[in-house]
């Protein structure tokens, strides 16, 4: 065995050395998502000058600061709005939004569905940890029924969002869901996501042992991962409406993979057409 004291990890060049080690809790899945993301970048040999990472508020929001590319940490719920601006101004850039479920689907819900409807060529990776982890574990739009949180001490009675169904119904061209235990499939999915033109979305079911798990009989990251291992079922291209997340069953896989003309292409074509007509 060789003990390495210095930070010489093969993915070190994709991470800002000054920000490492990150502040996420032990057992948190955000580090695995970041790991899968930089793994995909490494395998694709992406040009890092052509990549923009945008994140919103939440624990996973720090991912923008940790990746050693041009990145921006936006206000709460607005990463897709910011990413839309970047993509329209510079369509040649690859714009990736890494954010959480509370940021993208509670306060930023409208930005998400309209970006998906317009088919803007941005890529969204959503870390779903079932609650507002950063602010102390309040109930969120993805909290499962009967789950205990700080604001639902007797069990949640709100029906949760089905994020893959929402994305598919809004018109996203690529929709997938994985858990943080499916690291290989997640990295392959992120590679696919980066190669696509239109609006693409991956939901990553992520463990949150310190905030969500401790109130729901899963005190450690390992116990949450064991839940994913036992409950997850891969059903590729099944109906996203039936892709539920319950204590007994987590349906994962790719759900939608279609091609559609993107908004920025249609916009720039239209602009060129109008300019040409006005010149004639």
């Amino acid at each position: 065995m060789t003990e390495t004291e210095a930070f010489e990890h093969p993915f070190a060049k994709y991470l800002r050395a000054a920000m490492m080690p990150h502040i996420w809790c032990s057992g948190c899945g955000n580090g695995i998502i970041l790991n899968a993301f930089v793994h995909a970048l490494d395998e694709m040999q992406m040009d890092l000058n052509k990549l923009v990472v945008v994140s919103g508020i939440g624990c996973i929001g720090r991912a923008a600061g940790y990746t050693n590319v041009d990145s921006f940490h936006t206000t709460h719920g607005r990463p897709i709005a910011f990413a839309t601006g970047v993509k329209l101004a510079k369509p040649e850039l690859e714009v990736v939004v890494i954010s959480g479920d509370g940021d993208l689907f509670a306060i930023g819900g409208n930005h998400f569905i309209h970006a998906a409807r317009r088919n803007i060529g941005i890529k969204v990776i959503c870390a779903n940890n079932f609650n507002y982890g950063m602010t102390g574990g309040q109930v969120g739009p993805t909290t499962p029924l009967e789950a205990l949180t700080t604001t639902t001490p007797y069990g949640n009675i709100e029906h949760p969002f089905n994020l893959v169904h929402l994305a598919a119904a809004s018109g996203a061209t690529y929709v997938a869901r994985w858990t943080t235990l499916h690291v290989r499939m997640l990295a392959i999915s992120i590679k696919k996501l980066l190669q696509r033109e239109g609006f693409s979305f991956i939901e990553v079911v992520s463990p949150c042992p310190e905030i969500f798990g401790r109130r729901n009989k899963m005190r450690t990251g390992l116990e949450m991962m064991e839940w994913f291992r036992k409950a997850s079922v891969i059903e590729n291209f099944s109906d996203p409406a039936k892709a539920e997340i319950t204590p007994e069953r987590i349906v994962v896989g790719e759900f939608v993979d279609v091609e559609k003309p993107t908004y920025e292409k249609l916009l720039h074509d239209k602009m060129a057409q109008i300019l040409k007509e006005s010149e004639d």
Partner: protein
Amino acid sequence: MPERHWRTPLDAEKAVRPKAEIHIIKDQCKGCGFCIQYCPKKVLEESDEINARGVHPPRVVDEKECIICSFCTAVCPDFAIFVKEKQCKDGC
């Protein structure tokens, strides 16, 4: 269950299992235990020592068992472990 007839792979004579070199960056580890739990060959175990973050980092039990699947590298949230193939010229 159907009966399985295992056979030796045709290139079993020539094939050489690559030697692994497991690097653990101890002070980055937060002790979540994912690498230990999900190693398919159970190469890692929790050590007794305490690192700079106050947790027990993993320790290699038997490096020869490692098949370089690199699942530990992929599943580590803290970028604290990675596996490389051992580069040795005259057999190690």
